[in-house]
């Protein structure tokens, strides 16, 4: 049986289940998989977090190094987010430049951190126009069980929240905790027929008729959104998901803060 036929049968099955309000792994429509977070996993990083979202495994590492501010923002540090779908994570790896999915993943995580102003970049300036901290957020996707965006964002924010500004290593003052001002969380939904399911597994992402990621902050704002995949949403759908994203976001913020 060809891959395409298998995929079609699986899609039909996922959609049939959704019609009955059921999901492949037995979860409810608004039920996320369990989240496990372990910070400080990598000693060579200035902050790190190993996140499991059900079977999905993601490792984020933070490195802070002195560099030069951008000419148009001389008073600000630099934030760089990079997510890699390393070949361990799934059978689909191909060598070569990063594929659109990986680029989208990096940019969606980066955009939410930036839009929510999670880090006050002006605090990372050392000498205006000359020297500022560059904050690298490197995210390794190790095991792809679906919904990489939410797992990557959890890893990034957990690592940042428990990171150290390594002043001593570079003769720039004492080490101190990196200040995290806001704690944005991303929540992703997939449309399966009329159902809008949260935290989709890989098979649901393949079968879906539209995917929407919504980042919320602790003040009840939507900070970022990204529709992905082929498909469409009504404005009413979007508003419903925004409400649900806020609830999930608040719960996960509590979990990160309690680490």
């Amino acid at each position, binding site marked *: 049986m060809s891959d395409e036929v298998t995929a079609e049968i699986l899609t039909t099955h996922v959609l049939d289940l959704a019609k009955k309000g059921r999901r492949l792994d037995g979860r409810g429509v608004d039920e996320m998989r369990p989240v496990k977070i372990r910070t400080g996993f990598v000693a060579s990083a200035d902050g790190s977090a190993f996140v499991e979202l059900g079977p999905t495994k993601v490792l984020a590492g933070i490195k802070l190094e002195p560099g030069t501010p951008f000419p148009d923002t001389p008073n600000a540090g630099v934030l760089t987010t990079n997510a890699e779908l390393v070949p361990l994570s799934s059978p689909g790896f191909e060598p070569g430049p990063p594929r659109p999915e990986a680029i989208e993943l990096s*940019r969606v995580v980066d955009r939410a951190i930036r839009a929510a102003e999670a880090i006050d970049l002006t605090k990372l300036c050392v000498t205006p126009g000359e020297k500022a901290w560059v904050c690298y957020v490197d995210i390794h996707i190790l095991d792809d069980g679906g919904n990489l965006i939410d797992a990557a964002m959890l890893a990034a924010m957990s690592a940042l929240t428990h990171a150290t500004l390594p002043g001593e290593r570079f003769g720039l003052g004492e080490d101190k905790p990196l200040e995290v001002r806001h704690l944005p969380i991303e929540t992703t939904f997939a449309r399966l027929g009329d159902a809008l399911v949260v935290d989709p597994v890989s098979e649901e992402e393949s079968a879906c008729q539209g995917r929407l990621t919504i980042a919320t902050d602790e003040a009840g704002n939507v900070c970022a959104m990204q529709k992905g995949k082929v498909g469409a949403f009504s404005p009413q759908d979007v508003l419903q998901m925004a409400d649900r994203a806020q609830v999930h976001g608040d719960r996960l913020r509590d979990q990160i803060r309690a680490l």
Partner: protein
Amino acid sequence: MGSVGAKEVPQLLNEAGRRIDGRGLEDLRALKIEAGILNRADGSAYVEWGDNKVMAAVYGPREVHPRHLQQNTKAIVQCRYNMAAFSVDERKRPGLDRRSQEISKVISEAFESVLFVEEYPRTSIDVYIEVLQANAGTRCAGIVAASVALADAGIPMVDLIPAVAVGKIAGKIALDLKKEEDNYGEADLPMALVPRSGRLVLLQMEGHMSRPELEQALDLGVKGCLKIYEVQKEALRARYAVRSTEAPEVAA
């Protein structure tokens, strides 16, 4: 949005509620669309929208390159959004950066959502968007142009897809941001609509919006799209009018 550590923020809304270019909060910038402007492409369109100038061309359905991307049960939709080096204030290095690649991806997905891809298995429908002059909202201008180019190429679609960005400036939800509003505003939310179904095939957002603001923004965006939809249809009517005048000549 990207104004961390920047110096002075201009006044985006005056006492009379007018924007820096005199528009009200719900006004679009001037929009002009011309279909069929290129000879080699199967379909094409040119859009001037405020200070944006964008060209789109469509080739296909045609053979897939590279071959291994071919799908047995449907056409693939490959969009390439590119900015000319001279389209922005500071010269942009030629080539697709990560931003362009992300935009290419979400636009490809938006169009695949309205094209009858199952009708053309093992082919590619290629949509090329070139931004010649940029002033905020170029991805929406590209979608507007590409929609018309697809129709000009005679490729069946569920509907044309109009697109527009809604934003937030000086605390107010506003339609169709221009560059200064985008740079110093509080939020940007580009969307593309299928008028026939009322559903969104492209939706992105960054900034800060409360739940009521989000509702207002979606509502305003849909209204904006419906206005743009009329201009798109008008451009196609003008194009078909030219063609039907030409047709007798060819037939004669």
